[in-house]
């Protein structure tokens, strides 16, 4: 499968998850996130066919909005950072699971628990496979696949 095809499936899968579980729409146009925006990032590994890792990074403002929608927070107090991070982890988990269910045929797969990624762990030269506009920020996705032995 070509990288464009992967990117397209990743985008449509993320859109489905965001609309269904986070009650959030995305803008149709892709966009690069502003470099100085404060962001949260998580990563998870998957094994099966294919194997690899998915990294998700989202602006803090969008993360707060997504968490508020997901948890139906009824308070004006900001959600604790740990809860914010847990919601972003769940978002990455759902996007990855839904994507693999489409591309892996009927093969079973396993997902690791998503973990926070420190800013220093990012390769600044690696562009996201998919970058999406949300109402109050951006969401970026990297999908890195392992080569399979013949």
């Amino acid at each position, binding site marked *: 499968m070509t990288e464009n095809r992967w990117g397209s499936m990743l985008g449509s899968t993320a859109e*489905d*998850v965001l609309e*269904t*579980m986070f009650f959030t729409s995305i803008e149709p146009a892709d966009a690069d996130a502003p470099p100085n925006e404060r962001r949260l990032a998580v990563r998870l590994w998957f094994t099966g066919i294919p194997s690899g890792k998915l990294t998700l990074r989202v602006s803090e403002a969008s993360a707060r909005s997504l*968490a508020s929608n*997901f*948890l*139906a927070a009824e308070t004006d107090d900001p959600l604790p950072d740990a*809860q914010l991070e*847990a*919601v972003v*982890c*769940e978002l990455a*988990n*759902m996007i*990855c*699971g*839904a994507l*693999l*269910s*489409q591309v*892996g*045929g*009927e*093969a*079973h*797969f*396993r*997902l690791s*628990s998503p973990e926070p990624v420190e800013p220093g762990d990012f390769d600044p030269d690696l562009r996201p496979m998919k970058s999406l506009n949300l109402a109050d920020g951006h969401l970026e996705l990297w999908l890195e696949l392992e080569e399979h032995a013949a």
Partner: protein
Amino acid sequence: MAYRVLIVDDSAVMRAFIRRIMLLSGIEAAEFLEAGDGGEALEILRREWVDVVLTDINMPGMDGEQLVRRLEQDDLLKSLPVVVVSTDRTESRVSQMISLGARGYVKKPFLPETLRAELERVLGASQ
């Protein structure tokens, strides 16, 4: 009728989401119990009676597949309806979990009405 529901998921925010969706869907829940994996769920089920178990598959510790297998082997618990709630949307996984003993399967992401319909089907059939 109000139900006692055990939600098994390693993500606390996902457990909170399921609780909220069930309440929004109009399903009467007398009480929600929660477990972070299959082992914790078994401990709860040995001392508490519930009407239905909602479980994820992919969890550290005892996963959802092992939990369903253990429940099926337990004479006291094998009749307890289990609904799987998972990101794994493959038909092979759905078939596997149903053949192991799960009564229902909800694929994430899901609409509130999907969860409600599956719970009503499973709980209706178990009465």
